[in-house]
């Protein structure tokens, strides 16, 4: 397996002023499952294609196991790729699709047959070896695409949104299969997706990309709980993190407060050190699952209360999403509460906010305020 290192990787397409990927730097360790996550058009597929050798690199360096790969053709990088559209050769049977790459590399027929048979057994493709892709279901095609990559036994596996063409149920089962496969093979894998559920459940680490730049890299829970800026905070999580304009101030009794509209909630003293550094206007970030109704606050939470009005109730079966608002705050606030909540539209309720999970962001830079 392999270590993949990107250093200041940049891609500017000819005729374009903007970089599709700019100064991208990260390292994927041996055996790691790195997920590149970002909205459509953010440059994650461009980065993947540069690693694969399907796009030229404008500047920066790409190394695999310490060896510079910038000018090495795709076929010589010992990388296999699974495409979003599977890219199966429609005129070939499944067996020939699996063997195509091995034939080109001069493997003996017996070796090719052995590998194809083994991979087909592993992925449950043995009954379909003599079928053509058009006679397969979406899930079967996806497994053939995966098999074509595995059969080559490469150093690095690349996945370009391989599950996006599958239905929801199949996506879940295939996701689990991919995770099992990674555990079984112990291979270095780089996976591109715009689906945060895939990123959170599959990745060893997530690399969030926006507008061609790396925004944050870290384990899924760290990126989720400690986003570095409002983009990451609002991109991860469904519903996304509530980001509300607020103000740090000191009350008449000298206690530190966070003003949200006409209401103020008590906050830890250390939060106010930011105001004393000259920063008073902040963006208050709180995840929907960290807002509780009275009577259902968990013991670990240190909370503060807010009066809010229910704008909408969305019962989802397993839980209920409440859309809330309060006076003088333009943004609506979303809360995820239990399924048996009896809140009604227009009702005024008190919610408890877990300050231990809350974050403050700088409204000018959008970055998280550390040490709060």
């Amino acid at each position, binding site marked *: 397996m392999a270590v993949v290192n990107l250093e200041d990787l940049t891609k500017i397409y000819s005729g374009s002023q903007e970089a599709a990927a700019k100064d991208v730097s990260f390292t994927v360790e041996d055996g790691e499952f790195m997920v590149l996550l970002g909205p459509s058009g953010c440059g994650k597929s461009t980065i993947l294609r540069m690693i*694969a050798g*399907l796009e030229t690199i404008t500047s920066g360096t790409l190394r695999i196991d310490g060896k510079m790969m910038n000018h090495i053709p795709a*076929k010589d990088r010992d990388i296999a*790729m699974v495409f*979003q559209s599977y*890219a199966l050769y429609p*005129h070939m049977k499944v067996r020939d699709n699996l063997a195509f790459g091995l034939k080109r590399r001069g493997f003996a027929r017996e070796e090719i047959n052995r590998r194809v048979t083994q991979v087909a057994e592993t992925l449950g493709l043995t009954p379909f070896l003599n079928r053509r892709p058009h006679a397969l279901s979406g899930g079967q095609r996806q497994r053939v695409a995966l098999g074509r990559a595995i059969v080559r036994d490469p150093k690095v596996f690349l996945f370009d949104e391989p599950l996006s063409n599958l239905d929801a149920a199949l996506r879940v089962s295939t996701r689990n299969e991919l995770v099992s496969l990674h555990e079984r093979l112990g291979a270095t894998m780089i996976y591109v997706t715009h689906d945060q559920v895939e990123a959170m459940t599959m990745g060893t680490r997530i690399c969030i990309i926006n507008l061609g730049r790396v925004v944050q890299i870290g384990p899924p829970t760290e990126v989720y709980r400690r986003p570095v800026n409002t983009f990451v905070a609002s991109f991860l999580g469904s519903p996304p993190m509530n980001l509300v304009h607020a103000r740090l101030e000191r009350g008449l009794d000298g206690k530190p407060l966070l003003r949200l509209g006409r209401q103020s909630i008590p906050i830890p003293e250390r939060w106010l050190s930011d105001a004393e550094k000259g920063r008073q206007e902040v963006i208050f970030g709180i995840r929907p699952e960290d807002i509780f109704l009275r009577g259902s606050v968990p013991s670990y939470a240190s909370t503060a209360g807010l009066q809010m009005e229910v704008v909408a109730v969305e019962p989802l079966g397993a839980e209920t999403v409440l859309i809330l608002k309060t006076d003088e705050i333009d943004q609506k606030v979303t809360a995820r509460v239990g399924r048996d909540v009896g809140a009604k539209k227009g009702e005024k309720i008190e919610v408890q906010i877990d300050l231990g999970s809350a974050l403050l962001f700088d409204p000018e830079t959008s970055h998280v305020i550390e040490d709060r």
Partner: protein
Amino acid sequence: MSVAQRLKQVAFLILLSFYTAFVAGPLFWVTTMSLRTTTEIAHNPYALPETFHFEKFYKAWVNSNYNVYFTNSVIIVLSAVAILTLIGGMAGHCFARYRFRFRRFLYFMIFSTIIFPPQITIIALFQILVEYGLYNSRIGLILVYVAFQLPVTVYILESFFARIPSDLYDAARMDGYSEWSIFFKVSLPVALPALSTTVILNTILLWNEFLYAVVLIVDEAKRTLPLGIQQFMGDHLEDVGMIASGLMIAIVPVVIIYVFFSEKLIQGMTAGAVK
């Protein structure tokens, strides 16, 4: 089924029958005439054959040099279609897949020639072929046919190649194949419906081509079938029976080609219509 639906069905069947008669009628008529003598046809042009004169085909084939014309047509058309398919395929593939300098200009230059009818270019072609010693030669006619049909061939194939997902080519590159190999092992096989379409269209068109053949070929031994049929048409007399027999000899290979490739032709025409 309601009365209105049934009436609609009947009306459609009547219309279809008229159309079938309109299209198939002349073919059927030529077939019957090919088995009758000219005298019989003169007495009653539309009658069915009472005696089947198969010896007319032999007469046309041997005595009237149809075997020579047929062979020439096969050589010239097959060669031209083979070259058109290969060059047209390569050009279509390049235009569809690659971005290179002067791509748009070349594209325009090739397709702008479609608007010129053969009547405009025939004199210039005649002069060029004479200058290069290709006048009155099979090779010269093959080259003219290739040049004449290349724009349409490239147009049809380029449209089809452009619809092939680029991921397929990326996958082939990752599998280690060169651009050359990708063209022969991936592009061409996947484009078989479109290739069949161009083979059929080119074969039918070039098999029946008359103008270039009559101007650029003068030797009896190098004539193609359309020119051979012409010899039965005199200034004062037309041997209608032999014309019909000659036509049947000319039609049969085209029908065979169509029957062989027609399934792919339909696939080529409808491929991509539904995702």
